[in-house]
């Protein structure tokens, strides 16, 4: 009986653990003239949202993507379709640097 129960529980638990995770959403906060986190690793298909919490406008700009100007409180999202490493900057403040890695 105990063994049967264990099989049932295992059968219930297993599909959850085995199901491939769906696309996730990650947030990069722009605050204090920094991208937080400065290095972010995501899977293909994941969405990355940049949210500007500073009082001045910023951008998140790479060769593959460009948020254009984001005022305080504004967000911009990007679906990471291409694999690779994408260093990006704020074009308004070019010494603000970060990196998005898409696996």
């Amino acid at each position: 009986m105990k063994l049967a129960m264990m099989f049932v529980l295992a059968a219930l638990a297993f599909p959850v653990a085995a199901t491939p995770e769906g696309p996730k959403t990650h947030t990069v906060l722009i605050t204090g003239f920094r991208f937080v986190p400065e290095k972010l690793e995501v899977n293909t298909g994941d969405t990355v949202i940049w949210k500007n919490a500073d009082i001045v406008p910023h951008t998140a700009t790479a060769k593959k993507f460009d948020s254009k100007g984001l005022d305080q409180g504004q967000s911009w999202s990007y679906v990471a379709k291409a694999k690779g490493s994408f260093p990006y900057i704020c074009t308004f403040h070019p010494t603000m640097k970060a990196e998005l890695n898409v696996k």
Partner: protein
Amino acid sequence: MFKQKFSMITGAVALAALALTNPMARAADGPSDPQIVGIVLAADQVDIDYGKIALAKSKSKTVREFAQRMVTDHSAVQQSVTGLAAKLGVTAADSPTSDGLKSGARDITAKLNSLKGKEFDKFYIDNEVSYHHTVNSAVAEVLIPNAQNSELKSALEGAKPLFLKHEEHAKLVQSGHSKMAHQ
């Protein structure tokens, strides 16, 4: 050349003198909260005005973009500081430092108005580097330690990265610009 350097030094003297004051003397002689607000507003306005001159005179895309950034960012800081001061019931007050900033700015403005082309761009960017450097020191070493109100202190802490990034940006333009000048 000497005149240019002298002029830049004059522009930064008020803040530099404040930053270099003996630390022990600061607590007693440091600026009050209304004076700190007055200093920040004056320092911001000076850089907005320089930026507007650069936008009117410079033909360099890089210099103009930098100048536009200074106008946009420092205007946002002005709004934020004015709003915070109103909320806290603090009225900006003049001080020898804010007066010095304004009179130093008159010399720099005269110099900016007298220059053209690459000479103008070089003087504007060189001054932006030294000006932001001096403001950074003053914010960290004088304004923040002397601010009494915790919200004002925290707003100044929050403004630190802005001035630091502007200094780095100015140095970047300065180095790129010197390269272009030598090509």
